[in-house]
C-alpha cells in the first residue's frame, strides 16, 4: 500500500537553529499538508499546499515557517529559528481527490532544547 514517508523520525535541535523536516507524499496525490501535535494534545493543522503554492495556513504557521516542494517528489517544512514551544510531533499528509486516500506519514518528533 502506498505510504507517505517522513524523515528524520526524531530530530533534536538547539533553540534558535533552523530545521527542515522532509516528506515524500504518495506519488499521484496532489494535495499536501503539515500538521502538528504537541504531546498530549490534539492534532492541529499548519498548512496546505496545492499546485505549487500554499492554499491555506493556520495562525500557528507564522513567518518562522515555510514549505517547499523543491523537486516534484519531496515536500519540506522549514522552521527558521526554533523555539522551545516548537517541540512537537510533525505529521505530513497527502491526499487524492475528495476525501479519498487522506494518508499521514509516521511523523517527525522534533525536540528543541
Amino acid at each position: 500500500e502506498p505510504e507517505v514517508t517522513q524523515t528524520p523520525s526524531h530530530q533534536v535541535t538547539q533553540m534558535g537553529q533552523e530545521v527542515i523536516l522532509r516528506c515524500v507524499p504518495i506519488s499521484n496525490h496532489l494535495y499536501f499538508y503539515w500538521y502538528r501535535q504537541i504531546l498530549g494534545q490534539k492534532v492541529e493543522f499548519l498548512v496546505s499546499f496545492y499546485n505549487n503554492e500554499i492554499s491555506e495556513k493556520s495562525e500557528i504557521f507564522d513567518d518562522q515557517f515555510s514549505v517547499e516542494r523543491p523537486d516534484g517528489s519531496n515536500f519540506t517544512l522549514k522552521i527558521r529559528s526554533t523555539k522551545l514551544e516548537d517541540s512537537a510531533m510533525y505529521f505530513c499528509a497527502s491526499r487524492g481527490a475528495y476525501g479519498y486516500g487522506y494518508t499521514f506519514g509516521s511523523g517527525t518528533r522534533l525536540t528543541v532544547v
Partner: protein
Amino acid sequence: AQTVTQSQPEMSVQEAETVTLSCTYDTSESDYYLFWYKQPPSRQMILVIRQEAYKQQNATENRFSVNFQKAAKSFSLKISDSQLGDAAMYFCAYFLGGATNKLIFGTGTLLAVQP
C-alpha cells in the same frame, strides 16, 4: 466554524468485548467526510474508517464499524471483539472536501484494553 467533540477522554474495555467511542461535530454543510484515526504509542496516525456524509449506509471495516447519524451530527466508532492491539488514542476528524480543506480533529479518546 466546524468543530469536533469527543466527550470521552478515556475508555476501557475487556478483551473480546465491544466498545463504542463517541464523536459529535458541528457543521452547516451537507456534504463532507468523517474519519476515525488510531494513534498507538508510536504516535503514527493510522486511518481506521471513513464515512462519506452523502452515504446513508454505515461504513464497516472488519471489526470496526460506525454509527453515522447525520441529523444528530453524531459519528460513533464501534470496536467489536476488542484486541490488546486496539489499545491506542482514537481521534475523530471532519473533512469538508474541496481543494484546500484540512482535517479538523477532536481531542481524542484514550482506549485501554484489559486482558
